[in-house]
């Protein structure tokens, strides 16, 4: 019987099994941000165990609320900053160099196929796009990860999606993952790894694969995973070129992190997605999904383009291509948050920032901001936002507000019309 990629990664990292179905794994990366890490740090200090297992394997960023908005967020940043300094954690991204965690860590080349990664953040599943096992954890798991470089997991079953055909123009990875979550429901993948495979995924950029894997958690999944291929190698090449003679060598090495053809799955879903339409959420659960056409004419007050789901350069390019030479509706306000400083600079160089500003968008610094309703675009009671983020929970973007999740293309078209709009209208 063959093995899934998750089984292979578990086998390669298992420290021991202290109890049945309890796998203690060695960690390659522990990622940290300023919301969930400070309490781990203060608890370690209180226990007299203020140590880190390996400062080169720990990466930290201030991203959720940055620049600090009040004394409390300033204090959180300070705890993380002082700790990084104290322990010689060189890859610490502070204001001016900081961006949304699940965008900046891959961009800096910190993720590799076959890695085990934890972070005190549920969307850590994003990094599975590189063929890694990456799981969100709570502060206690994070604390032990920081201290010992280990984490315990029950063995996750794997479900596999085979995605055939090709996406229509105006339909993106975001539409696909919304459709998949609708099929799975919000707990259909709980305690499971979701493999995304097939020609549609093979043809996707790393950015799009990250968008897919990012929302695995919205179906309860532990991690989303794509198999490493030449696209993965190309993305990582500038970081790995000293390790390998050629890209083919790198591909050969990374190809071992692929599921065997005779691996066993909890379930395999196969779809031809050629007829898939742009999708959008209604209500307060990410599996409440309809086609944009069914929801068109739903009035919105705000548009938000950004986050770890869709704040990457590809997303900004798509949105800008629709916004170009147009104005946003007088009925809405629109915000775009490039997810990292590098994305911001590139967008500036490519003229995208100018396009957004000419259309009437507010361009913010890289941050999570409005995504979790902590800053930079909180909704008022009764307001609705067309958003490229990943969660539409009640109150997520502000008490009494509604969030409609959608692709950057749909968000851009919706900004122009002031209501949920199919971007295909704007493509000749």
């Amino acid at each position, binding site marked *: 019987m063959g093995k899934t990629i998750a089984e292979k990664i578990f086998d390669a990292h298992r*420290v021991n099994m*202290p*109890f*049945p*179905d*309890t796998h*203690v794994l060695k960690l390659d990366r522990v990622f940290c941000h300023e*919301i*969930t890490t*400070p*309490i781990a740090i*203060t*608890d370690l200090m209180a*226990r007299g*165990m203020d140590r880190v297992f390996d400062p080169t394997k720990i990466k930290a960023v201030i991203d*959720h*609320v940055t620049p600090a908005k*009040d004394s*409390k*967020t300033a*204090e*959180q940043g300070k*705890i993380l900053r002082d700790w990084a300094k104290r322990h010689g954690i060189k890859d610490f991204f502070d204001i001016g160099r900081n961006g949304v965690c699940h965008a900046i860590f891959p961009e800096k080349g910190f993720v590799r196929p076959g890695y085990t990664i934890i972070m*005190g*953040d*549920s969307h*850590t599943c994003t990094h599975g796009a590189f063929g890694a096992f990456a799981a*969100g*954890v*709570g*502060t*206690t*798991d994070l*604390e*032990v990860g920081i*201290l*010992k470089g*280990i984490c*315990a997991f*029950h063995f996750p079953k794997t479900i596999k999606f085979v995605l055939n055909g090709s996406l229509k123009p105006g339909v993106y990875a975001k539409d696909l993952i919304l459709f998949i979550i609708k099929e799975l429901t*919000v*707990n259909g993948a*709980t*305690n499971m790894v979701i493999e995304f495979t097939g020609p549609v995924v093979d043809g996707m950029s790393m950015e799009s694969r990250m968008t897919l894997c990012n929302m695995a958690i919205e179906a*309860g999944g*532990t991690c989303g995973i794509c198999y490493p291929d030449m696209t993965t190698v190309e993305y990582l090449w500038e970081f790995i070129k000293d390790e390998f003679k050629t890209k083919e060598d790198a591909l050969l090495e990374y190809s071992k992190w692929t599921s065997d053809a005779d691996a066993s799955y909890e379930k395999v879903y196969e779809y031809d997605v050629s007829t898939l339409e742009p999708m959008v959420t209604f209500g*307060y*659960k990410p599996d409440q999904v309809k086609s944009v056409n069914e929801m068109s004419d739903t009035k919105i007050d705000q548009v938000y383009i950004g986050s770890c789901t869709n704040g990457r350069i590809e997303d900004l390019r798509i949105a800008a291509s629709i916004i170009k030479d147009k104005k946003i509706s007088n009925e809405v306000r629109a915000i775009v948050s490039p997810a990292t400083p590098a994305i911001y600079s590139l967008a500036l160089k490519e003229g995208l920032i100018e396009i957004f500003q000419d259309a009437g968008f507010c361009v913010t610094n890289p941050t999570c901001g409005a995504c*979790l*309703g*902590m800053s930079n675009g909180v909704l008022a009671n009764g307001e609705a936002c067309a958003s490229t983020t990943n*969660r539409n*929970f*009640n*109150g*997520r973007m502000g*008490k009494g507000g509604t969030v409609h999740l959608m692709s950057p293309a749909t968000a851009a078209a919706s900004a122009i019309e002031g209501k949920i709009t199919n971007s295909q209208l704007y493509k000749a």
Partner: protein
Amino acid sequence: MKEFSGKVLFLDRSDINTDEIIPAKYLTEITKEALQPYLLEDLTLNGFNNKEDIQNKTVLVTRANFGCGSSREHAPWALEVNGINVVIAESFARIFRQNMYNCGMLAIELPADKLEYLFENYSGKDTSITIDIDRNKIVVTSLDQSEEIDFQVGEFDKTLVKEGGWVGYADSNY
């Protein structure tokens, strides 16, 4: 080990997420105690009053997929600083469930029919529950009745509860 015994709060809804348990705007607090006033502030559930209904409760009984969404351990902490250290549900989101055991608290899964039975017979009454972790029994009591319900808990989870959480266990074993 903590004491797992006291009055029951029934929340008759599935998919209660961690944003509802403790909204993100309170994640700027850096002590667990500071979360106390905000537990379940954004819960959408008819007739639920977060100021009155959670007072003096120890055990939370709810439906499927409790604790979905964000990884914030602030959710178990907000429960704990309000005196709640047991959640009984049909199922849990993985991270929330692990967070509970990592803190030495209990997240107990019961089949849907047993939960339905609890809701039908005990919700709306003055009900208490005691967890006997050595015998794997939930002891339910209200004025006119008392009975025991079996539950399963894995060895790892049980060890975390007995040793008071994952940090202590990991430090002495790894």
